[in-house]
């Protein structure tokens, strides 16, 4: 195997004495991780949704389209909607507050 074609960190390891078995092992580790991720996304995730509490909420998120993974309020449309509804409630129904 030609070290020229390998990523740097791998090439560094095989410098001088090529160790194709080590290279293969690294790529196999990568393949194994990708397989695990695939299993998590397409096998474990859907199976876990068979737990009633998980499945009901998951279905609601799917139907509502809410971005449950959003990290800040500006990424969630429903937060803007809630902010406006609450502000208008205060403004028109609780003007003294």
């Amino acid at each position: 195997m030609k070290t020229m074609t390998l990523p740097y960190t791998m090439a560094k390891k095989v410098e001088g004495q090529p160790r194709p078995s080590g290279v293969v092992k690294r790529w196999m580790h990568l393949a194994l991780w990708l397989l695990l991720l695939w299993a998590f996304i397409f096998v474990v995730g859907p199976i876990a949704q068979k737990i009633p509490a998980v499945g009901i909420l998951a279905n609601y998120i799917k139907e509502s389209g809410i971005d449950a993974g959003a990290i800040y309020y500006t990424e969630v449309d429903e937060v803007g909607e809630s902010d406006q509804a609450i502000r208008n409630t205060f403004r028109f129904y609780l003007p003294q507050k």
Partner: protein
Amino acid sequence: MVEEKRSTESANIVVDKAETKLSDLWKLEDYWAIWLGFLILVVGMAIFLPRPPENMQENIAKAEQAMAAEAARAPFKTIEWHKANDAKGKIKATSEGYAKGIKNFLSKPHGWKTDVSQAFMMGDEAASAKGQNAVPKYEAAKAKESAALAAATSAQAAAAAAGFSNAELNNTAKNTISDWRGAHRKASAAKKKTKVSPYNQIGYLIGLCAVLAIFFSIGIFFMKGGGEVAKFIPGFIGVFIIAVLAYVAAGQATMKEYGIGYAAWAILFGLIISNTIGTPKWMMKAVQTEYYIKTGLVLLGGEILFGKILSIGIPGIFVAWVVTPIVLISTFIFGQKIIKMPSPTLNMTISADMSVCGVSAAIATAAACRAKKEELTLAVGLSLVFTSIMMIVMPAVIKATNMDHVLGGAWMGGTIDATGAVAAAGAFLSDRALYTAATIKMIQNVLIGVIAFGVAVYWCAKYECAPGQKVGAGEIWVRFPKFVIGFIVASIIFSLMYGSMGESVGTAMLDHGVLRGFSRNFRGWFFCLAFVSIGLATNFRELGSYFKGGKPLILYVCGQSFNLVLTLIMAYIMFFKVFPEITAAI
């Protein structure tokens, strides 16, 4: 000794040079984060502010007049009030044609279920078929909405016939209107799914990659010279591709339902690459975690609008701005004194992400106290796991205990880390729960600015000192992470603009214009690039060493337990004992 320790760890943490020179302004990445962040904010303002929606002021006034008339007519929010409120909500700069063009360009890959190519493109036929498939559900949701509206109209008419003075009829009307709002939300979401347009995101992603590569190269050029730019650009393309893959994984239908967002995937993909085949040297030139994070944080500063903190009145202040700092400080002290966390920066990052708002708070606090990359990774991982659990468990507990949805919403808003998960859990219960939960969370989001600034000052003035050492203002300035100034200034400028425009116009033009239509998209990409960089530069073994003894987990669980108890008590006192009229109005 402290300086020595800092210097040995400087390769691994966010550190400024311990001296101040004029050339810092174009040599330090903290300043470049400020310049680049403000460049985006200024461009965003130049695009959006001169182009308000047509008849914006008149339409806002019309909606508000209708709401005022309904509020004068009935003691509860009527159907007409909600329709006027909906109409007001549609007045926003992001609905304009030019804003949609910008959104397409800055968009992340699309959602998909089993066919990953749909993350990037969808033809006419596939789009049409997908839209058609969603029609039966929409028709069913629409029918339910019509029935709910008819019931609400009838109940409201009965209450009106009694002059809105019969408490029982008023209550019935209020509840049926609430049911209609739930059905309306479902029908609106179902309608969106019937409108599927064909798309091809690949061209936009290539264009965005080029724009961002040039954008960040400007700073690299001044900080490191032209030679480094030539090395940075190929590496950036590699980092950007992994960031795209992170967004693709986050867009998978099942993962979206669990709320597993881009941050987790970006770190994971980076980690897998660096710990299997190794991060290529050419890519390492663009593994610039702090550069991306700091620029993203300056943009985040613009999103911290202090005018938002009064959205839900005094109860919101107490639940979000009194409980949160108490929990943060208590957890940090508990971590230092009782658990004896080996790293104070890890302690602070976990305490902040657990008590404030998850990933975004972890990023801001980690940068402010110069936490290590592994510490940020660990804090983000803990937050994501517990967010997924709490998003499922808390609505179930609230339902099982028949807890009032305003109280339940405030409880979830104050405790579940991620904002998206709070909105999902709240909306799952009811509109009342959503409105309270989301607004409390939003107020807590704004707290990030104060927390990050406070942590930065505390770390410079107290924590990085030898015992008994006093630090002068000059030394604090030298040590202070300068990008925090950009972060705070952006927040102050946008908060002042928001205040001067007035809530309605500020929401339409800034919140739903410059911020949601422009800067937050860039900020999302920058954080994603930063998380990819963290993964690419992190070793599994090193990461594992931070988790030794399970102390971070113990800290998170203890802190979150305290948070759950204190938030519930405070929410109950505020919403039921001190301000019951607010609860009744929501």
